[in-house]
Each structure stands twice: as C-alpha cells, then as structure tokens.
C-alpha cells in the first residue's frame, strides 16, 4: 500500500451511474449539501463518493439535526472514564472495575423484518461494547408496538422478541431487563432499542482512534455481502409503502460468528497487537474507517479489492456501504499482522489487511490502482453541516394537553374502583411481560442477582464486591403532551428504578426516537425533551455518556410519540442490600415515600380505559426526585427496607398490586388506608401518575420515616402487607374496596399469553397486513 501515489487523480469508475440531481436526491443529499461537497473536493464527486457522503452525512451517522441539542447535555463526572463520541461510554465502578454501556435503536429494520431487525440490533450493540475492551455481561431492551389487537403488531412483537432472544441467548449474554409498551402511536413504526453493558478493568479500555503512520488496517470477521446497503440512510427516511419494496436491504444476523468475534476481539485487545478497533456497523466500512481516522486526525487509504467478499462482482460503492454483520475494522501495530491473523484463525475467522494509516491528510479509497474516492483530511466527518430548525409546538398536542382529565366521564363500571384496577392490570403495557422474558436467557454468566420483572436488574461483578443496577425507561405519551416535563421524567424514573434496587444512579445512555426533525413540531419536541433530560441529569448527577438518535420514525399516518428512552446504570457499593420490588413478608408496614396529588393527565388510565392521550403529564421536579433517591438509598443502606417499587404506569393502586402479586410463586395481600388524601378525586389518587413516589415495605417504619425526614421527602405509613388469601383492600374515607388477589393476578399474568396464544392460533404472519 505504501507505494500509493500521493498525486493520485480520482477517476469515475466505468459503469457507474452518472451524477444527476435525481441521483443526489435519491441519496438523501440536499442541493446545499451537494454544493458543500463540491466545494470541499474542488470538483464533482464520483458515484462512490456520493455513496460515502450519503452514508456519513445521514442523520444516523452525523447527528446533523440533533448534535447542537445533544451538546447541551451534561457529560462529565469524576467517575466518567469515557463520555460521548466513542463506541460506548465507560464509568468507573470500584476496585479498578469499570462498565461500558450504550443503547442503540434498530427501529426501521425491525419494522420491515422484525426477527432479523431486532437480532442485528442486539449484535450491533454488543459489538459497540466489546470493542471498548469490555466483556458484555447484560442486555436490556426497550420496545414499543401498536396495540396487540392487530395481527401485524402481534407478528412484529413476537418476531422482535424471538430475534432478541435467539441472538443474545446464542452469544451467551443474559437479557436481564427492559420494558415493552403498546400504544397506537407506534402502530406503523415499532421501536426496538437495545442496551448492552460490559465489564472491564480500567487499564483495558480500548478506543477507536486510528494512529501510527504505516499501521495496517485490517478487516476482521464475516465477509462482506450486499446486505443492508444504505441501511444508514434508510434509517433516516420516513417509512412508506415504497420502503417496503426496499426489503433486500435487510441484514441477516449470525450470533454464532458474533460469539467467535467477541472472543477473538477481546483476545486481540488484550494481546497488545492492535491500536484501535471499531464495529463496521451502520454504513459499514465507510463510517468505521472514516470515524477512526477522524478521531486520530490521520489519513487512511483502503483498497476495496482486498476486502473479503461473499458475492462476486461487488463494486467499491457496495463494499464501502455494505452493512453485513459481524465485521470489525482493526488498526494493528505494523509488523504484527501475522499475530493478528493467528488469533483470528484460532476462532475460525478471517483477518485481511485492506489498507493503511498514511501521513498524507486524506481519506482515500482505491480499487486496486484506481482511486475511486478521496476526501481531504478528515473533512468528510467534520464538514457535515448541522441544522437548527425553527421549532413550533403542534397546536393539536397543545390543545390535548390543555384538556382537563376530570371532564372525561367515568365509565359506569368505574363506580367500583377494583373493576378499574383489574382492567388496568390487563393493559398489555402494565401486564406481566413474563411471556417475553421467559424467551430470554437471563441467567447465563451466573451474575444476575435480580433479573427481569423488577424495577431494575442487578448484576454482580466478578473481581469486586460491588454490583450494578440497570434499567431502561421512557414514556412517549408524557413527552408528546409536554416534551420538557416528559424528558425530565424519563431520567427521573430510570433513576428511581435503580434506586429502588439499592443502587446510586451514576450515568445514562439515551436513545432519542423521534419523527422527522425538519418539521418544526417534531424539532420542538426534540429540543425540549433534550432540555428536560439535561435538567434532570444535572440534578441527579447522572451524565450522558453516549447514545443514539433515531429520527424519521413516521409514516403517512403520522409520527410516533416522541420517545426518548433512558438506560440508567446505578452502582451498589456492596451487595448487602440488594432490594427487590415485590413484598417479602406478611405483617410488614407499607410506607409511601412522596406524595399523592390530583394529576390524572397523560395517564395509562386515560389511554386504556378511555382511549385518550390528553391532559398535562404529572409535574416533575428533579430536585424532589433527587431527594427521594437520597432518602430511599439512605434507608436501604441502613437495612431498613424490605422492598421498594416505584409508582409509574397505572399509579399507586397498580404499584401496590404489583408488589403483591408480581411474583407468581410468592404472593401477598395488602390493606391500605388512604383517607389522608380523601379530598383528592378518587381516580386521580388511585390511578394518577404523580411522580417522585415509591412504595416501600419495611419492618422498621419509623426508621424509614426518619430517613425521609432527613432529606425532606414526604412519607406516610399507608398500610401493611397481608397474606395472599386476604386479598387487597383500599380504604379512602368512607369508601372501601376489596378484591381477591386471584382475579387481579389473573389479569396481570395471563393477558399477554392469552392474546399471543390466540394470535398464534390464527397464524399471525408477515403478510397479515401491510404497513400503513
């Protein structure tokens, strides 16, 4: 490679299409962006160069509509070892042990082919973590679908779950938690966000920064096929009937090769033979090589003829943009090529030198001797424009927020609040997701102390007595109705969840799932949601260490609810006080931390019983949320808390009932007296979703109250845990309601299995109905 001429002239390749305005448009490049490219190159781009720019300047790779907003987020804390800009963020835990973590979306691919879309999403996020030198120890995911009444939605749901399960199970990384939400706004655009957490020793941290003139660039892992060409720009388009016909773009995952690649990559990183490593993910070879070069501020040259291909006759354009899975790009130390090959060969994988780090400041691609693309310096990465759009709130959503939930007349049956409670527990969003997580191996690696179904998963870390708690959360309906408040809640709820497990919230990774950002109403949502998240992160001291942006989640029927999801990592300094969500012992006292309010807006109650997404979401004051977390952790660390569960979808009544019967093999009853709030409307008290509330069970209520008082958190003894056969009982002034646990438990545990078994009997398939 070293004999490459420095004065090489870029030549159009025979057979390449002519560069026309139509071709530029088809590549998602605006006329202004095209002008910028011409100015940068000092000439018209070749077809290959158009492909490269289209990929790297897509929203997915460039964050061009979100970067100015993301810059406002806090990213630093003493424990942050690596913030945004790398393959994953890294925080220190204890004793030299650190964790790397990141969330990423695979929304568009999953809409087209749910099984492979979700599977390859898991594969990608695993690679992002193990390229940092971290061994993946946990996967979580946040999923959104339309209502399960639709056969197409059931097909997507079961395909996504199977894809996640088959991939993670095979690689041997436990899937330990997550959330699944069903809402009409996601009917045409399901969301699949996967989060991975890996563990490493601090000194093993590896960065994807190309360095060292003369160092070889090596393609590692699977061969390159025509899979998913233009997947990155595909992810930056609205879904339409036309994109259904673009199906051949879908990539196929091979978790077996991933497992080999995982072991080989960790061995490579520990070997000291390599300088940098990066996943060939979105936009494949192009983005991995250009980004590594830009981070190191070096030049690179790559010869596409040397890239091992799976199909014959592939063009440089196709090789550069292929999104074939399970591939890595490695920069090795010069002279260590044989050693690298030997490590890969041990795992039955290929390693082929395809390029070199060069002194000349250029990003160059050749096809043998022919130069097919060349960009000056790192401008391919750094010159991508960013956009700030005028933002305007959607008047429809502003009007929906202004509506008073109390104007919605209750259904006649609601005279009995237990009827309402049972209905809510049967809402697929609230009901048990055991049908989902039983398909995931949540225990492999024997480190899962608390698995799926609790507020947060808890993992022990070998090599230290500390642990981590993990959660992923978001509520798109809140964000739709008030982006600023919704953004705050996403962070605060995730913090509450890890605190309920006994962990101090430490850092987040976020996935911003929004509609088309060039529409002012969508940009308004993005801008305000990011601002809200920033507010909460600053107060909670949980910096953002990285994440993903998925825009253009809309179809001709409209955009999804704006849905930022927050993956939170919390740290437990010891494993002495890992706290479950479920009640543990009859006779324990139930304490409510936080206060009940008259806030019924944007609730699951309004959606599930009345089909309405209206009203203001509950207020969220990050300072109060922080105090709640501090008080709860104080009580937990002193051994005063037997269980802790936060109030979220469905409010206090649902939270209490979940504590009683979320575990099928250890159920309880409870009796609570809420007379202190008898002046609140009953349905707001029971089903409103006021924030900053946690249900605690304890045998030392005075100590819990003292912890709350110390941090200025309201706290009330509201009742006690009873035996399961006593059922559940609510007393509010002169209203008393009770019900046997069995019917509530049936609603909670059987809803999703019943729907899915009935759907399977009807043969839900890909062609059940088409998108849009």
């Amino acid at each position, binding site marked *: 490679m070293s004999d490459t001429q420095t004065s090489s002239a870029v030549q159009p390749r025979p057979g390449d299409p002519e560069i026309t305005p139509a071709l530029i448009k088809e590549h998602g490049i605006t006329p202004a962006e095209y002008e910028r490219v011409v100015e940068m190159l000092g000439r018209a781009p070749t077809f290959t160069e158009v492909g490269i720019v289209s990929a790297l300047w897509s929203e997915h790779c460039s964050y061009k509509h979100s970067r100015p907003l993301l810059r406002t987020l806090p990213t630093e804390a003493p424990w942050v070892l690596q913030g945004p800009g790398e393959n994953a963020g890294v925080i220190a835990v204890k004793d030299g042990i650190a964790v790397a973590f990141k969330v990423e979306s695979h929304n568009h691919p999953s809409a087209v082919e749910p099984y492979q879309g979700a599977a390859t999403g898991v594969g990608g996020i695993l690679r992002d973590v193990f390229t940092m030198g971290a061994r993946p120890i946990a996967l979580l995911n946040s999923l959104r679908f339309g209502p399960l009444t639709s056969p197409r939605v059931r097909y997507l749901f079961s395909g996504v779950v199977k894809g996640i399960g088959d991939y993670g*199970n095979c690689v041997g990384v436990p899937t330990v938690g997550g959330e699944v939400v069903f809402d009409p706004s996601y009917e045409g655009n399901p969301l699949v966000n996967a989060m991975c957490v890996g563990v490493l020793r601090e000194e093993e941290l590896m960065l994807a920064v190309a360095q060292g003139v003369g160092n070889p660039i090596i393609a590692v892992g699977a061969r390159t096929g025509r899979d998913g060409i233009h997947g990155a720009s595909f992810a930056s388009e609205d879904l339409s009937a036309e994109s259904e016909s673009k199906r051949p773009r879908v990539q196929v995952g*091979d978790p*077996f090769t991933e*497992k080999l690649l995982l072991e080989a990559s960790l061995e490579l990183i520990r070997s000291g033979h390599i300088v940098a490593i990066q996943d060939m993910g979105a936009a494949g070879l192009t983005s991995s090589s250009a980004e590594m070069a830009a981070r190191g501020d070096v030049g690179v040259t790559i010869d596409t003829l040397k890239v091992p291909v799976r199909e014959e006759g592939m063009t440089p354009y196709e090789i550069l943009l292929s999104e074939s899975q399970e591939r890595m790009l490695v920069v090795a130390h010069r002279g260590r090529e044989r050693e690298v090959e030997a490590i890969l060969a041990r795992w039955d994988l290929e390693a082929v030198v395809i390029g070199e780090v060069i002194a000349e400041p250029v990003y160059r691609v050749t096809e043998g001797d022919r130069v097919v693309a060349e960009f000056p310096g790192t401008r391919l990465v750094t010159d991508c424009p960013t956009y700030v759009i005028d933002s305007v709130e959607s008047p429809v959503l502003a009007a929906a927020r202004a509506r008073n939930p109390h104007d919605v007349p209750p259904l006649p049956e609601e005279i009995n609040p237990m009827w309402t409670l049972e209905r809510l527990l049967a809402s697929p969003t609230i009901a048990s997701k055991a049908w989902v997580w*039983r398909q995931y191996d949540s225990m*492999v*690696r*024997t480190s899962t102390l608390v698995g799926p179904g609790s507020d947060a998963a808890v993992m*022990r870390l070998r090599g230290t007595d500390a642990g981590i708690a993990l959660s992923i959360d978001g509520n798109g309906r809140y964000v739709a109705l008030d982006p600023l408040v919704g953004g705050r809640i996403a962070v605060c709820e995730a913090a509450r969840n890890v605190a309920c497990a006994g962990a101090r919230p430490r850092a987040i990774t976020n996935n911003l799932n929004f509609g088309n950002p060039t529409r002012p109403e969508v940009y308004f949502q993005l801008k305000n949601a990011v601002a809200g998240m920033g507010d909460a992160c600053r107060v909670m001291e949980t910096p953002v260490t990285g994440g993903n942006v998925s825009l253009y989640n809309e179809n001709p029927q409209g955009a999804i609810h704006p849905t930022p999801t927050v993956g939170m990592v919390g740290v437990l300094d010891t494993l002495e006080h890992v706290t479950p969500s479920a009640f543990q012992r009859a006779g324990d006292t139930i304490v409510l931390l936080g206060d009940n309010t008259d806030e019924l807006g944007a609730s699951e109650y309004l959606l599930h019983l009345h089909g309405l997404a209206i009203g203001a979401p509950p207020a969220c004051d990050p300072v109060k949320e922080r105090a709640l977390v501090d008080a709860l952790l104080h009580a937990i660390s002193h051994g005063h808390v037997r269980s802790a569960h936060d109030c979220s979808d469905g409010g206090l009544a649902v939270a209490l009932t979940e504590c009683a019967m979320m575990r099928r093999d250890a159920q309880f009853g409870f009796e609570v007296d809420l007379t202190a709030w008898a002046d609140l409307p009953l349905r707001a008290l029971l089903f409103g979703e006021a924030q900053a509330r946690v249900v605690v069970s304890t045998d030392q209520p005075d100590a819990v109250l003292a912890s709350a008082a110390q941090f200025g958190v309201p706290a009330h003894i509201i009742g006690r845990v009873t035996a399961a056969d006593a059922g559940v009982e609510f007393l509010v002034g002169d209203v008393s309601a009770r019900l046997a646990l069995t019917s509530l438990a049936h609603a909670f545990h059987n809803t999703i299995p019943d729907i899915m078994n009935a759907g399977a009997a009807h043969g839900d398939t890909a062609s059940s109905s088409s998108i849009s």
Partner: protein
Amino acid sequence: MKVGIIRFPGSNCDEDAYHAVVDHLGAEAVFCWHKDHDLQGADLVILPGGFSYGDYLRPGAIARFSPIMQEVVAHAKRGAPVLAICNGFQIACEAGLLPGALLRNDHLKFVCDQVHLRVESIGTRFTSRYHVDQVITIPVAHGDGRYTADGDVLERLEGDGHVVFRYVDAAGHVTDAANPNGSLRNIAGICNSAGNVLGMMPHPERAVDTQLGSADGLPLLHSIADSLMSEALV
C-alpha cells in the same frame, strides 16, 4: 479432582461451569480446546451448555465431530465420569454417549426459568448427596430440550434406574404444567447404562449459590467428587 471443561466454538456456559467447580466446589478446573486431543488429565469431563456451532443443522450435530470428542468418548468408555449439560447433553446424544435425542420444545419457544426437578435415582455417582425423591430447584434455558427416545429405550432407562431427574411441580408431582419443553415422561436428565455419563437439560452450574436463587446443583458436583475419591481409595 481435576475437571476438564470442553470449549467448543459457541460454548457459553463454560465459564459458569469453571466458576462452579473452582469457586464453589473448590476443585481444580481446566479448559480443553475443541481442536485439541488433550483432556489434560481431567478426572471429570464437563460438556458445557451454549450454542456450539450456533446450533446450526441440529444442536450438537457439528460439535460431535470436533477432535476433542474422540478423547471424550474414550474417556467415557474407560468408565470415567462425563457431565453433559444442556448443549452438552445434545452433543452427547449426537455422539452416541447417551441414548435418545433432544427436539425443539413443544411450544416452539426458548424457555428460561427456575424449574423443580425430582431426583429419581440416588444410586448414581452424580446423585449420592441427594435423597430419594428430593425436589430441587435448578434453572433451564434452552430451545431444544424435549427429550425423546424409542419406547424400548425408555423402558430400559426406567427399569435400570437411569432416569436421573424428572420435571415436577413444587410438591414433587409429575404434571404437564411442570414440564417446560414437552419431554417424554417429564425426563430432565438420564445416565448411560454404565452409569458414568449424565446428560441433563437443566443447569446445575447455575445453581451453586443462594444469591442466584438456588444452590441445589452443588450436591451434584460433590457427589461426583465423592465417587472419584472413593475410586481412588479402592
């Protein structure tokens, strides 16, 4: 006791087996690479769980041809103990070390759960530390765990006391609801006619620590250690 844990491409419970043996049993363990012919003097061989060769074609079908399997078969023929867990059980069946086969779960989905097993036989070298009809809690995590065999094979297994574990409910009753995969006669684990190869779909190596929900797998490892020690004394 020295334990050799076979590492196939795609094994993913190898490290869990290692930690169970070293951290919880207190014995020595080594990894044996599938391309080698060396069991490194192991007294007990563990075929661990995972997805060897991605479970492509049939679970275990490709792994049985790995070079190391010749040594594992020879080890078993000498009467030395082999513990085949989950994917290891599938490999052992494909390799002819155990009778029968493991098919796709009857509900066609992967299943991960804590299940109850009844110890059917304490006369084996794997189960001497349990008591008859003891109900233990051990996790399962598999997509292809439905044990099947011809009628005469089943009769022989039953008659010889070689059905070692059965899926039961918490009270120890054999029920359909307690069967996580549709295995014939709720069979969860069997041993060969010589009694030195145990295959089981549940994961005893995941049940060695009450922090993880159960330590009921530990007596199994201790039973093997006991049997090796008594052999050494003879």
